[in-house]
C-alpha cells in the first residue's frame, strides 16, 4: 500500500502512466458529450410545462454536479498532500480550482438563462442558485489564497487547509440555504427538483453527466502533466524527455 502510494506520487511514474490513460478519457469525454448533447437537444421530447427551454438542463445539471464534485476532489487532494506530502496531489488540486470555478460559473450562468423563460427574470434567489453562488465565492477564495503567497509550498498548504475547511462547510451552507429558502418562499416552483423525469429525458442527462466527468478527468490529467513539467523542469528525466522530443 505504502509503496503503491509513493510510486503513484512519483512525478515521473505519474507522467508515464497518465500518458497511457489520457487518450481514453479524452475520447470517452468527446463521445459521451457528443451523444448526450445530440440526443438531449434534438431527440429528447420537449417538456410539457417548459417546452424546449428545459434543454438547458443538459448543461446546467452536469456543470452543477461537477462544480460540487471538484471541490470535494480538491479537498481530498489537499488532504493527501498534507498527510503524505505527495506533490502530485497538490498540483492536481491547483489545476482543479479554476476548472471548478468555471463549472460553477457555467452552472450559475445557465441557471440565470433558464430563469428568463421560467421566472421571467435573470436572477432569483433560488436555493440552488444561491448555494452555487456561495460555492463560486469559496472557489475564488481558494484561488486567491493560493495566489497570495510568495512561497509556493506555503501556498499549497494554505489552499489545502482552506479547501478542507470549505468542504466541511459546504453541506452546512447547503442545508442552511435550503432552510432559509423554504422559510422565505414556500412552495415555489424549483427548476431542478422535478417529479419523475421520463426515461428519454434523463438518459441523455446521465450521458452528459458522465461525459462532463470524463472531460474533467482528462483536462485535469493534461493540466497536471504540464504542471509537472513546469515544476520539475530542472530534473534530469524532464530534460531527457525534452531532449528526445526536440
Amino acid at each position, binding site marked *: 500500500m505504502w509503496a503503491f502510494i509513493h510510486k503513484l506520487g512519483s512525478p515521473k511514474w505519474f507522467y508515464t502512466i497518465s500518458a497511457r490513460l489520457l487518450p481514453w478519457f479524452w475520447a470517452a469525454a468527446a463521445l459521451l458529450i457528443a451523444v448526450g448533447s445530440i440526443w438531449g437537444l434534438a431527440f429528447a421530447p420537449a417538456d410539457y410545462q417548459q417546452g424546449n427551454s428545459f434543454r438547458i438542463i443538459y448543461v446546467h445539471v452536469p456543470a452543477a454536479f461537477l462544480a460540487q464534485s471538484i471541490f470535494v476532489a480538491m479537498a481530498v487532494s489537499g488532504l493527501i498532500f498534507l498527510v503524505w506530502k505527495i506533490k502530485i496531489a497538490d498540483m492536481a488540486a491547483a489545476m482543479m480550482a479554476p476548472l471548478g470555478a468555471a463549472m460553477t460559473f457555467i452552472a450559475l450562468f445557465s441557471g440565470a438563462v433558464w430563469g428568463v423563460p421560467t421566472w421571467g427574470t435573470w436572477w432569483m434567489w433560488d436555493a440552488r442558485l444561491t448555494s452555487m453562488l456561495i460555492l463560486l465565492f469559496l472557489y475564488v477564495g481558494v484561488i486567491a489564497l493560493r495566489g497570495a503567497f510568495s512561497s509556493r*509550498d506555503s501556498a499549497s498548504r494554505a489552499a489545502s487547509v482552506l479547501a478542507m475547511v470549505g468542504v466541511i462547510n459546504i453541506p452546512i451552507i447547503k442545508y442552511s440555504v435550503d432552510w432559509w429558502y423554504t422559510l422565505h418562499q414556500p412552495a415555489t416552483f424549483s427548476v431542478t427538483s422535478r417529479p419523475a423525469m421520463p426515461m428519454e429525458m434523463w438518459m441523455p442527462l446521465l450521458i452528459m453527466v458522465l461525459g462532463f466527468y470524463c472531460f474533467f478527468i482528462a483536462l485535469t490529467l493534461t493540466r497536471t502533466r504540464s504542471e509537472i513539467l513546469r515544476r520539475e523542469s530542472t530534473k534530469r528525466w524532464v530534460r531527457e524527455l525534452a531532449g528526445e522530443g526536440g
Partner: protein
Amino acid sequence: MTLRLQARGLACERDDRWLFEDLDLDIVAGEIVRIEGPNGSGKTTLLKILSGQLADYQGELFWNEAPMHQARDAFLSSLLYLGHAAGVKATLTPLENLAWYQAMAGDPDSEADRLAALEGVGLAGFEDLPTGQLSAGQQRRVALARLELTPRPLWVLDEPFTAIDREGVAELETRLEAHAHDGGAVLVTTHHALRATPVLRHVRLGAGNAHVRH
C-alpha cells in the same frame, strides 16, 4: 541529564531550491555551535527546523537518541528559542512580558525571579515602563532576560546580538560560554564575530552544501 541533538541527512527544499542538502549535525552538551553562511543560505530555516518549528524537511532529527516525533515534548521542554524578532510586546511592561513567558514555560509565577532576570540584563529601573518606550537594544535585552528566567539546557538563538551595544555583546558572549561550561548547549547564528574559545564550533552553510570546520 544528557543532551544531544542530532540531525542526519538533513535537507530542505524551498520552492525547488535546495537550501542545504545532506547535512549531518551533532550538538551535545558543553558546546556553542555557530551556524554561518551568507544571507539566504538557510540559517534561519535550519534553526527553525532544529527547534522543531518547521516540519518541512527531509532527513531525521534525534533528541537524546530518540526520534524527534517521539521526543517532541521532552525536546520542547528543554529548549529555549529566541527568534529573529524579539517576541516582546511593546504595550506590555518588561515584567508583564516575562510573566507570560514564565507561565508558558510552566514555571511558577515569581516576581522575584523576573526582577532578578531583568536586573541581570541591565534593565533594573525599567521594569514597569511599557516596553515600546525602551530602545531597540533594551527591548532585545528583555528577550534575553529569558535566558536567566527560564533555565533550559538547549539554547537556539537567531541573531541574539542585534541592536545590543558593545558591553552587552561581551556580557552575552560570556553568558553563552558559561552556559556551555555548565553543561548546556548553544546553537547560534550571528553576523557578529564570536571570540574564539575551545567550546566554539562553526558550521558553514553555503551553496547547497554544508561544510564543517572546527
